[in-house]
């Protein structure tokens, strides 16, 4: 019955008919574009996720056709189902924009902002979120919280300071593996992802927690500090895997496979879960049948201009000289004169392992 009923919902003045029981967030994603609220904790493939990060708050200015009263508070769009005739304001509501900027500030409050050394940088949802919805500075003047380090075994690296406690990895472990070994310990701002007590995460599918993590709290140890994601080229590939679908994305530099992840859709959600063997053990091109380059449909600032066919390829036709009446832009300092890092004389992909500053030192030869 419910799958045939269509509810009309208007989000930011764009109307769409969606099946009854659809959440506001999913209805907005059906419309697409800027109308879709950001989601840090909601994950459509994980049952029970969502409602925690509060970034997807929207204003319901009209409850439904039957009961047109607006909802008194902002609601979490990922957990609120649409009603017939509902009118939702997302980016058109100043209240929502203000509350969302507040949530971003809260999320970044204790975040270490160590993006320059974080493996997630470039594909981090928190980077995107703060760029799109946050303010340029923080008003927080206190020491950020730190945690005792937990070792989760040889595959998964936990950086608790970066965690935004979205609970996605907990849901993923609950729903993908037979027995969850990690969880949230403690309470409030000192709650942390950990195992009780110092266990390895051992399950064929536990590697997927890396993919569901929106930030760099859970990263791939086999890829740790090896390369930046924007230097790598994503390729669709598959192999005949006895445990999982074997459909993955390889992140290559030249022929070398730096890491293997599951394929992610335009909302950054995994299409098919993959097993640990595919993810961590198969790092040879010969292990895989390459299908072709994967188009990354991402709005990330860092991914812009690095992948053909994404946003941000539209460049102005005028040169700077033309705009400035023949004058050249005045630089205070040309970085290339003092540093050779950006113009290395060496071929990075020919270096065995990660590059070291010594590699860039011409006197080193």
């Amino acid at each position, binding site marked *: 019955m419910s799958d045939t009923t269509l509810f009309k919902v208007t989000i930011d003045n764009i109307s769409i008919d969606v099946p009854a029981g659809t959440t506001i967030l999913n209805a907005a994603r059906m419309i697409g574009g800027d109308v879709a609220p950001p989601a840090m904790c909601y994950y459509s493939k994980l049952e029970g996720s*969502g*409602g*925690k*990060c*509060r*970034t997807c*708050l929207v204003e319901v200015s009209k409850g439904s056709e039957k009961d047109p009263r607006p909802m008194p*508070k*902002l609601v*979490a769009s990922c*957990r609120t189902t649409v009603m017939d005739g509902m009118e939702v304001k997302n980016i058109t509501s100043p209240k929502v924009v*203000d*509350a969302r900027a*507040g*949530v971003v*500030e*809260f*999320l970044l*409050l*204790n975040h270490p902002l160590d993006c320059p050394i974080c493996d997630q940088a470039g594909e981090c949802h928190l980077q995107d979120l703060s760029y799109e919805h946050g303010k340029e500075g923080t*008003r*927080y003047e*206190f020491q950020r*919280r730190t945690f005792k380090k937990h070792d989760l075994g040889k595959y998964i690296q936990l950086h608790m300071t970066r965690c*935004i*406690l979205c*609970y996605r990895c907990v849901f993923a472990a609950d729903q993908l593996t037979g027995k969850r070994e990690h*969880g*949230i310990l*403690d*309470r*409030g*701002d*000192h*709650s942390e992802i950990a195992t009780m007590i110092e266990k390895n995460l051992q399950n064929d599918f536990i590697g997927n927690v890396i993919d569901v993590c929106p930030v760099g709290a859970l990263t791939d140890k086999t890829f740790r500090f090896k390369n930046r994601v924007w230097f790598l080229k994503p390729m669709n590939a598959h192999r005949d895997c006895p445990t999982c679908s074997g459909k993955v994305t390889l992140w290559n530099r030249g022929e070398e496979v730096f890491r293997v992840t599951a394929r992610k859709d335009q909302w950054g959600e995994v299409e098919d879960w993959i097993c640990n063997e595919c993810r961590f053990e198969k790092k040879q091109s010969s292990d895989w049948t390459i299908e072709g380059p994967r188009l990354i449909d991402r709005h990330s600032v860092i991914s812009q201009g690095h992948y053909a066919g994404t946003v941000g390829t539209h460049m102005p036709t005028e040169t700077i000289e033309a705009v400035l009446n023949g004058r050249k832009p005045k630089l205070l300092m040309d970085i290339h004169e003092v540093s050779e890092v950006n113009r290395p004389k060496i071929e990075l992909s020919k270096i065995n392992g990660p590059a070291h500053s010594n590699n860039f030192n011409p006197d080193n030869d």
Partner: protein
Amino acid sequence: MGRKLLLEKAHVEGIRSFEVYRREGGYRSVEKALKTMSPEEIVEEVKKSGLRGRGGAGFPAGMKWSFIAKPEGVPRHLVCNADESEPGTFKDRYLMEFIPHLLIEGLIVSSFALGSNATYIYIRGEYAWIPDILEEAIAEAKANGFLGKNILGTGFDCEIYVQRGAGAYICGEETALIESLEGKRGNPRIKPPFPAIKGVWGRPTVVNNVETLASVVPIINEGGEEYAKIGVGKSTGTKLISACGNINKPGVFEIDMTISVEEFIYSDEYCGGIANGKRLKACIPGGSSVPILPANLMLKTAKGETRYMNYESLSDGGFATGSMMGSGGFIVLDEDQCVVRNTYSLARFYRHESCGQCSPCREGTGWMEKLLYRLEKGEGKSSDIDLLWDIQRKIEGNTICPLGDAAAWPVAAAIRHFRDEFEWHVSHAAEAQTRNFGLAHYSDPIHVPA
């Protein structure tokens, strides 16, 4: 002298034992309800009584009961919320400790009305000795045929289980309580679905405060309409107020909600005035979460009318010039108390008790605590006060459960009414370490000690 309905017999010698309680007229309501009334009639009677939830929100109890879903073949549950953790509130503890059978009696009647065959009392872990008292009362009631199978030969079965919490304020929120009762981490659930549809183990559940359930006993005994005659307006019946702070007689008082705040604070029957001949500075009338009010607004509303101890009068003027009845934790501050320090103390509590599930509460409570600590230590800046205001505004209403609001309101109210004291802490930082701000224009204009 108002009427007492709950604590009337609380000090009879040996009232904790079944024999004495029964001799004093206990368990009459069970006999009346189970033998002569249908569950629908009981719900109707509670609706007529106008009983409002005593846990803090003040939602009409009969209305809440009528929302419970009744799907065929699915058990329903009643849960008694005895996780009384609000700073300043200790009324349920008093009731359970002195007259436990009253709660058991109310629970049996309410279980019958809601069709709950397994009823739970979720009690906070810090009340370590009270579960023993309750379990003894349950055992006695069972031995006398008021609990267990086929109660009083009416064919109604009911068991009451006592579940201890592990000491978390958040587990007083009804969905967090349900999670904890199920043996999980006490994180509030995202509503909807409400517990009346999906509560304990996915079954329809009603969660009520101890005092609410105990109040069902006089409602059944005397009838809903009789009960509604006590009190005033929509504040019917009697309310337990736990008064503490700088007063001569701290303790639990049963009031009939017609007395004025002034009478409550200064009358010898209740608080007995401010201790040590000091003057009233401020008051938090309903437990730590509700807005603090300066003395002049506490005794009189903004319109200049007398403020009474009931739901409507205490919230008169909204949050701008009013407060809330809350859970009845009446905290009185005299002229020697520092509002900044008090607010810091509350903020520290909420930072510690935030479950950490949703970001505004998890991060915002900690931030407010740090800012207030800095202000209290005389290291604050005047911009910190505006920042605090902005933080509380961004927490309030944007969280999963009311803990975010509860953390934001005290800070908001303190800045709203006592901003000059915060500013003094910035401008006279060194002096603020040695003495208190004392009274200002918001002091109580009536009672000057002789």
